[in-house]
């Protein structure tokens, strides 16, 4: 790698962290540490809200998702503008005016202390599980660039993020996030330019779009043909509009990692405007990243690609295998290369035919290449004795081999900064909820100095927790899906208990935590019983769970509201 790339990789993150800590130094008291003194302007909070959601996974995993599945992932974000308007008219004014430190403080005022504590514990579990994934994604890049062991990369990123969050608090988090988004937008733009510029002569942007479309990579809107598919297919318009609204109401309205961003706003108007930044920018940003993945798929029709994107690992594993296994692997490799060569010829013929070209031969060639890639991946998993996949390695493999000097350094720096700025917000919110919702409940007479000190210790604890859990997330599947499935199991129920508080005045005291526990139990039942492997159904030729993860948000939320209302009715009939 060129020295200029190295300079960018080191200098950009160092500048971002140093400048953010410097800006945060004026916030020394408890409110300053946890909420940046409630003094931040809307555009900075808005960027921070986006950056908290846009981790390194966003760039690595979503681009790779676009390569494998096209634009379908975009469905997840379609409901965002609608959810943000609901939040701006409900929870945002209440939280901001009430001057709470955590979202769950409301639950104690509305129901009772056990409801607040249970909500906080559910948040800590869900965010605690997801936090490790923020570290795993950049460790892939460092592993590919330097050959650095992933454990070392995880330790390095976790250590740096925890250190500046401990010293700078929420202000450092927000100022890091603003810079992250600028670098990230630059990285996405440059990568798009590089993939289009890397296409062979005679294949332009319009041809690439036609090839991606013929390869089923440009389906941004999918209408389910029947009710069964609306539930089972993870990405369709019905699930997106119903499940998606509940997902974002829960994520932005009841997840402390997001609520804490807009609690730092200097007024209610600033808080509301900050959420609308995501409403307008999130879908275009995700579209650009997914399109990048789809275009990388087209790029590899013309440029040789390994069947498994963990090529270095594959060679090492094949070298250690028996002679028979090596021979089988070499045969598979030859078949794959022949199929890829054949597909290149078909793709060139498709471009040469212009409009009205028959997509069927290209689709058959894609299918053949896909089958051989699946076989190669299965062989690698068997030989390496792992369940890990290579989905998250696709985008890193592309940019390491194809980005020009300077842009490569910028993109890698963007991934590192994205990892840190997503992790810092999570550590900050986990520490805040641990201390304000649990520690202060146990020790209500604790002075502000002690609470501030405990918040720093809690940040250190969660930093260590994130680092350790990052070692175990690789086997869960493609990162971006893992994070959203875990989140969806909790967000619906968490938002449901807030909704219960507003919609049902008769629900009070213990109704809150019983309803919350019931909603979460309903979601867990769906995940572990209804969606168990024997119940899987066939969608698009693949066996999938009968209930897609976006629906978990609806099940959890509706479960809490229904149980809460029933409890209130029972009490009324008894009295």
């Amino acid at each position, binding site marked *: 790698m060129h020295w200029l790339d190295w300079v960018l990789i080191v200098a950009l993150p160092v500048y971002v962290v140093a400048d953010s800590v410097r800006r945060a130094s004026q916030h020394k008291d408890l409110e300053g540490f946890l909420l940046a003194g409630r003094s931040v302007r*809307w555009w900075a909070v808005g960027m921070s809200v986006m950056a908290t959601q846009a981790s390194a996974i966003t760039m690595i995993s979503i681009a790779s998702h676009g390569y494998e599945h096209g634009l379908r992932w975009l469905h997840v974000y*379609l409901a965002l503008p609608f959810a943000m*308007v609901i939040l701006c008219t409900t929870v945002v004014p209440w939280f901001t005016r009430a001057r709470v430190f955590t979202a769950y403080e409301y639950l104690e005022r509305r129901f009772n202390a056990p409801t607040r504590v249970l909500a906080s514990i559910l948040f800590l579990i869900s965010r605690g599980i997801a936090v490790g994934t923020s570290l795993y994604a950049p460790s892939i890049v460092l592993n590919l660039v330097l050959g650095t062991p992933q454990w070392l990369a995880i330790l390095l990123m976790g250590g740096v993020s925890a250190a500046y969050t401990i010293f700078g608090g929420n202000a450092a988090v927000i100022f890091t996030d603003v810079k992250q988004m600028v670098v990230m937008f630059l990285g996405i733009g440059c990568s798009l330019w590089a993939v289009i510029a890397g296409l062979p002569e005679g294949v332009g942007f319009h041809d690439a779009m036609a090839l*991606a479309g013929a390869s089923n990579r*440009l389906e*941004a809107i999918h209408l389910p043909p029947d009710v069964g598919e609306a539930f089972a297919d993870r990405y369709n318009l019905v699930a997106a509009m119903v499940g998606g609204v509940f997902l974002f109401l829960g994520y932005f309205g009841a997840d402390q990692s997001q609520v804490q961003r807009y609690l730092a706003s200097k*007024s209610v*108007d600033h808080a509301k405007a900050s959420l609308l930044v995501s*409403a307008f920018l999130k879908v275009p940003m995700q*579209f650009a990243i997914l399109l990048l993945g789809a275009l990388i798929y087209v790029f590899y029709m013309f440029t040789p690609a390994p069947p498994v994107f963990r090529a270095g690992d594959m060679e090492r594993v094949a070298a250690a295998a028996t002679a028979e296994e090596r021979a089988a692997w070499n045969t598979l490799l030859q078949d794959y290369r022949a199929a890829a060569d054949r597909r290149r010829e078909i793709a060139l013929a498709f471009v040469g035919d212009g409009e009205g070209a028959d997509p069927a031969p290209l689709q058959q060639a894609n299918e053949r290449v896909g089958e051989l890639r699946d076989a190669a991946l299965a062989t690698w998993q068997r030989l390496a004795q792992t369940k890990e996949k290579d989905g998250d390695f696709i985008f890193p493999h592309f940019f390491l081999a194809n980005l020009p000097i300077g842009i490569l350094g910028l993109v890698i720096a963007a991934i590192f900064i994205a990892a840190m700025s997503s992790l810092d917000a999570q550590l900050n919110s986990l520490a805040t909820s641990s201390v304000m919702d649990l520690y202060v409940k146990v020790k209500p007479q604790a002075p502000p100095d002690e609470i501030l000190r405990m918040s720093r210790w809690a940040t250190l604890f969660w930093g260590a927790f994130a680092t350790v859990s990052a070692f175990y997330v690789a086997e869960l599947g493609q990162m971006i899906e893992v994070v959203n499935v875990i989140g969806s199991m909790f967000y619906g129920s968490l938002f449901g208990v807030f909704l219960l508080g507003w919609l049902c005045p008769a629900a009070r005291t213990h109704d809150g935590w019983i309803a919350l526990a019931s909603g979460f139990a309903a979601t867990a039942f769906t995940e572990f019983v209804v969606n168990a492997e024997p119940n899987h159904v066939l969608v698009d030729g693949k066996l999938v769970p009968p209930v897609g993860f976006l629906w978990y948000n609806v099940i959890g939320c509706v479960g809490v509201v229904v149980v809460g209302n029933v409890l209130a009715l029972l009490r009324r009939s008894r009295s």
Partner: protein
Amino acid sequence: MNEEIDPRVWRRIYVATLAYGVLTIAVLWWFTAVFD
């Protein structure tokens, strides 16, 4: 944005946001029909 914004202005902003959401879906629908 130091003074509080008139609620009527906020209502217009909300309507614009909702319209943007609907328009986004319409454009993506068109995009899918043309390219996929």
